[in-house]
């Protein structure tokens, strides 16, 4: 994986992001919805459009947007005049916090279950866990969120039903108590995303382990009398983790997609909710901005996975790894 490969991949990533931004820009501007509601007078609307530069020809608007973007300026929100960059910067920590917590649960639980199932393949624990993970994997995330809210938020009252922190006691993090409060608020939304993700990870990891189990070097390891533990951990797991790295990159789109729904349900002040609200308000700059950030995250995830795989497995350095399970992405 030389510098040339990396450079080519980076350029390709930038090109992809550029294409996404262009696509989103065009999509917004050919949509029939008007930025001002029917109740606003026509003359006022025209004036507003002139102010925001929406009366210019489309190519000119596009060019201006790109130039501004190159300067790191994503425009100002139509709804409240705040810079889009500030709005996104204000919400991203929350999304990262949620996604990070979900990712930890997803990988720890998913890997553990997948490995355990592969070791006990086709025995009772594997079959039971296989059915359970298949079921959880099939749940709509938003419905699972409602279910968890109903049981743990309303009936048992173990966790808060929404928001990222207690608005009275902890509007900002300023003590250890508030850190705990933050985590306590993260529990349910992160558990929702993490559980569904973990079910997918477990299924993936089990299959990867079994795929490796058929390889000659595993048989050799067993034949030369290595203890089973060592065969599983050193030979099987290590090689099965290679394909898992690819899945790591694919987790990003899942978490982002889930974030829109989960953040809406849990009143979580993250980027997904920002995007959703902006779409309903037809707040174009915010919509384009969030879509841009989202695609950057997706592309960066893929790139990161490619690099990690390349570092871990010299055989794959020549070309990008083929997608293992893009169907669900």
């Amino acid at each position, binding site marked *: 994986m030389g510098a040339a490969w990396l450079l080519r991949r980076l350029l390709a990533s930038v090109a992809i*992001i550029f294409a996404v931004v262009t696509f989103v820009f065009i999509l917004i501007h050919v949509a029939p919805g008007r930025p001002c509601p029917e109740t606003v007078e026509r003359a006022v609307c025209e004036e507003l459009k002139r102010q925001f530069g929406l009366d210019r020809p489309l190519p000119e608007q596009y060019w201006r947007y790109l130039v501004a973007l190159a300067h790191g300026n994503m425009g100002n929100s139509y709804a409240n005049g705040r810079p889009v960059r500030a709005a996104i910067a204000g919400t991203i920590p929350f999304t990262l916090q949620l996604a990070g917590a979900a990712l930890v649960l997803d990988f720890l639980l998913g890997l553990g279950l997948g490995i355990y199932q592969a070791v006990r393949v086709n025995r009772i624990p594997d079959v039971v866990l296989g059915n359970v993970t*298949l079921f959880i994997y099939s749940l*709509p995330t938003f419905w699972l969120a409602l279910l968890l809210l109903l049981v743990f938020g309303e009936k048992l009252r173990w966790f808060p039903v929404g928001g990222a922190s207690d608005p009275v006691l902890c509007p900002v993090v300023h003590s250890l108590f508030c850190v705990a409060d933050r985590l306590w608020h993260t529990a349910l939304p992160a558990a929702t995303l993490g559980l569904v993700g973990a079910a997918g990870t477990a299924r993936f990891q089990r299959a990867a382990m079994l795929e490796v189990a058929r390889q000659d070097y595993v048989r050799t390891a067993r034949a030369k009398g290595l203890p089973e533990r060592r065969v599983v951990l050193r030979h099987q797991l290590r090689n099965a983790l290679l394909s898992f790295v690819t899945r790591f990159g694919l987790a990003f789109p899942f978490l982002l997609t889930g974030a829109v729904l989960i953040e809406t349900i849990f009143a979580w002040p993250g980027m997904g909710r920002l995007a959703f609200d902006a779409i309903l308000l037809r707040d174009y700059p915010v919509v384009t901005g969030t879509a841009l950030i989202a695609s950057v995250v*997706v592309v960066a995830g893929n790139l990161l996975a490619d690099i990690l795989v390349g570092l871990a497995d010299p055989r794959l350095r020549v070309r990008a790894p083929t997608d293992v399970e893009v169907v669900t992405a």
Partner: protein
Amino acid sequence: MTLGTWLALFVALVVTAEIVRVLRHRAMRHERWRRFFRHRTTTWGLGILTFLVIVALAAPLVAPYDPDKQLDIVHLKNHPPSWTFLLGTDVLSRDVWSRTVYGARVSLGIGALGALVAVALGTLVGAVAGYYQRWIDAVLMRGVDVGLALPRIFILLMAVALWDGLPFAALIIVIGLTSWFGTSRLVRAEVLSLRQRDFVVAARALGAGSGRVIFRHVLPNAAAPIIVSAALGVGNVLLLEASLSFLGIGVKPPEPTWGNMIADNAPSIYTAPWSTLFPGLAISLVVLSLNAVADGVRDALDPRAEAA
């Protein structure tokens, strides 16, 4: 629930059992399809799907009430499940069972049609890219790269919200158009390896045109991944439709879809959980069955995954 609806439900159950039995019986003759039925979950999944499709088709027979009718907004609002209202009534006093049954038509229909659009498009693009290679392949696959990088839910939200509620057909097409990228990569990879095989080379040597080679020789041999991704695709589209409807921008209410029902009743989930839980359970059941069937097909058509 009247005697008639119970009877119709019973008949649906019997017909389902019979269909699965016959399929299973016929499958025993082929090694491949015997593997398909080897897993109990797959057989159950097939049964559940068959049953739901029958129920959806026979909706007027198995649904005791008009799905949109508000039976008695004063006395029958949020009525818990009982023998008269099998799954209870919702916040507008509509019968949840009847809405679930009619919702199956819409939800399954959108799932199947959306997946059909996606798989057809993905297969076509994948086959063309893999078969012709060179610049066609390069152009198409870079397009797919962009498609996979699109934050899909954002795009769908935008399309649906900006157009102010799409009609049915448009919704299906938009969902289909944003769901084919993964399939096309799978098919391309398959076609790339198939086109080097002797029988394809022979067909071309005999003078078969590209179209004939692709459709008669290459694609039939790439059926396994296509079928699997179709089965998974139906589930994905179903979930997507439910998510959009849940956010209030999918299928317009009062049309019953499972997503709509959850959206309508989620605010009253604490007092009347049944009207939210049952439609969600229906979605899960369908997606679960589809995943199980996809697992079975993968097993049946890919002997390598024997250990699984």
